[in-house]
């Protein structure tokens, strides 16, 4: 196996893609604590493997090794033949080296004399140190921030998955169901934990946990539990699918999912949709919506926005002007209006709308209130809200759901379920600010029984 410079460049590219995958596309992000030549292995097919994740930081999942096409591969055993081979060859003397920059990373390559079959990449130690301090801090910060916005509480020592499954099985057997136990377990587990429980339950008892739920329970509590137990992507797919069906159709829900999820979350929802319904979400939206609504919703659900924070102020000015013109002409479903809202990054839209307010005096949603009965305008206003201050949007949905004569359980369930692990705390704060009543108190007042109990658990309510 000869390793010329170009091959080494390619190996390096793969390593960088893999690292980027671990940081940005894997949830939760994995920080590799020890990227070095020892941990970059080539197998006999020239596939690159990154190992050494046994003690990685910020990883709540199993250690993995990433195969070169980005797919998660599996765990190489520590006494893997390849590792040993490389270790042994690690003692050669460098005969030539050169420094090479790629995307702001500096790498020093050393070529070794001796038998052909080895590779040696050394990251300069300065870069290594920098990498660790920069990324581990950053990712720890991001994780902490995320956890502070969610209301879900998970016990510090979580029972093992098999224990959870056993308890859940017990809760379903015998006379009637032990709802309290189910709430205590599932209501305090995050998405990965729930997924693992479902998987293990199916392996142990031969049936899907959710089927068991279906059999034993009924009504609002069941729906909440079912939706909660699902993986977030599957949940979004289910909600979206319902929203395209005739009796449960809802343009609002489609817009909500498309705009309040991150680009990757929306993507995962679309993938889950393929798997579950054997068609694409886009087809269904195109097929089941019409006119202006379709014009707006189809690009929204198809979007894959850039997620960076960079903002172009000149563009913000131009687009704010454009929006203002179109709105003044009452061309609300104009192509340009839709393309700005459906393709620009959230940061860019934010900048554009700020500029709009500064330049033209009004918040854009005020200008979009021209006709309070126009449903399309209402959807457009909600779209804007979802993109720039989702917590206000959700507060309104909750407020309307609760204040209605006879609560809108569908909306209440949906919001609590989908935001408990994301930003329900902020939404609850906003709710209290606007209504002078804590969200949990409003829930207690308006709901009852096990439905109320699970809602409160998910909303982070602690029994006094």
């Amino acid at each position, binding site marked *: 196996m000869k390793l010329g410079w*170009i091959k080494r*460049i*390619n190996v390096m*590219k793969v390593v960088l*893609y893999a690292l*980027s995958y671990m940081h940005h596309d894997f949830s939760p992000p994995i920080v590799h604590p020890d990227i070095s030549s020892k941990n970059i292995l080539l197998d006999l097919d020239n596939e690159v493997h990154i190992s050494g994740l046994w003690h990685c930081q910020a990883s709540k999942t199993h250690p993995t090794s990433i195969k070169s096409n980005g797919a998660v591969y599996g765990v190489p055993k520590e006494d893997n033949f390849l590792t040993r081979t490389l270790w042994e060859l690690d003692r050669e003397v460098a005969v030539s080296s050169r420094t090479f920059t790629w995307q702001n990373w500096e790498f020093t390559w050393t070529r070794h004399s001796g038998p052909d079959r080895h590779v040696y990449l050394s990251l300069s130690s300065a870069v290594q140190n920098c990498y660790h301090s920069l990324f581990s801090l950053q990712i720890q910060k991001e994780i902490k921030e995320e956890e502070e916005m969610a209301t879900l509480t998970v016990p510090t020592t979580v029972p093992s998955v098999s224990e959870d499954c056993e308890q859940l099985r017990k809760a379903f057997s015998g006379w009637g169901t032990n709802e309290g136990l189910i709430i205590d377990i599932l209501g305090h587990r995050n998405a990965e934990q729930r997924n693992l429980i479902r998987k293990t339950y199916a392996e142990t008892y031969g049936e899907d946990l959710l089927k068991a739920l279906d059999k034993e329970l009924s009504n609002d509590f069941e729906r909440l539990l079912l939706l909660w137990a699902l993986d977030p992507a599957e949940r979004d797919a289910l909600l979206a699918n319902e929203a395209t069906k005739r009796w449960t159709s809802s343009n609002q829900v489609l817009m909500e999912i498309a705009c309040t999820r991150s680009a990757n979350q929306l*993507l995962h929802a*679309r993938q889950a949709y*393929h798997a579950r319904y*054997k*068609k*694409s979400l*886009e*087809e269904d*939206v*195109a*097929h089941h919506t019409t006119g202006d609504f*379709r*014009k707006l919703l*189809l*690009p929204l659900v*198809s*979007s*894959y*926005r*850039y*997620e*960076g924070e*960079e903002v172009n102020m000149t563009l913000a000015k131009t687009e704010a002007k454009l929006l203002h013109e179109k709105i003044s002409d009452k061309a609300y479903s104009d*192509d340009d209006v839709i*393309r700005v809202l*459906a*393709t*620009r*990054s959230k940061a860019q839209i934010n900048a554009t709308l700020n500029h709009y307010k500064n330049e033209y005096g009004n918040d854009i949603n005020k200008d979009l209130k021209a006709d309070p009965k126009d449903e399309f305008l209402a959807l457009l206003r909600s779209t804007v809200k979802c993109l720039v201050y989702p917590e206000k949007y959700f507060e309104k949905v909750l407020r309307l759901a609760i204040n209605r004569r006879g609560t809108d359980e569908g909306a209440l369930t949906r919001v609590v379920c989908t935001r408990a692990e994301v930003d329900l705390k902020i939404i609850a704060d906003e709710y209290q600010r606007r209504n002078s009543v804590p969200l949990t108190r409003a829930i207690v007042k308006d709901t009852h029984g096990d439905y109320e109990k699970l809602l409160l658990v998910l909303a982070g309510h602690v029994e006094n």
Partner: protein
Amino acid sequence: MRKGCSKFFLEDERQFERWNDSAIKSLKAEFKLFKDVVVLSLMHPWERDARLLKKAWKKGPPHYNVIVEIACTRSSDQLLGARKAYHSLFDRSIEEDLASHVKGSERKLLVALVSAYRYEGPKVKEDAAKSEAKALLNAIKNNNGDHKKKAMEEDEVIWILTTRSKPHLKVVYEQYKKISAKTITEDLEVELLLKETVECLCTPQTYFTRVFDTALREDAKEDAKKALTRLVATQEDVDLKGIAAKFEDKIKERVKGAYKDVLLGVLADDRK
């Protein structure tokens, strides 16, 4: 060779034996083509597609077929990968760039094509296919009558072609042939971009064969030749192998020098 030549300066001291301008130009051009193939084939396919997309919209309408080519012939995940790579490379999404820089009637179609994330399974809806074939026929026939709006601007046409799965579209085309006297590609002769969309989605071989053919003609223009580079370099991503092989002889005939060697080399490489 030239260094050994002592008679560098001819009679008049101002006139040295310079190399023929056109010779320099052609050498440069040849090595540029060579370099392009090498660089393109070494890149990761996602990065390659992202860069090709950017170049295509920057260069303008005659190059929009590259956008159609990439958006329609790649698998859903490959296209997605290209979009991700585009984010990383250019700090923007391809959708926003296309939406803000493509001004003409092609805009809606192109943006929708790159935003597609099609279902890839075999399941097909026969009834829907029938009504969609009808809708396409109406849009195309109306265009022939009323020249103000092109078929590619019709919402119906766009959502059918950009959200339906490829197997489903195959059935739509079959249904189309039943209700129209001709095939859909025949009926779309007037709207080249739309025709290429339809071709690339379900019969990419027709499209690629045509591009190869044009590139290898005697009177081929620069852009057509560049297409050759692009197709050979990206052939591993798309099922081109059969077609590229067919054109090998013509490549040996028409193409010269290092460029030819590298093209044939990449083709051979992929056959392993």
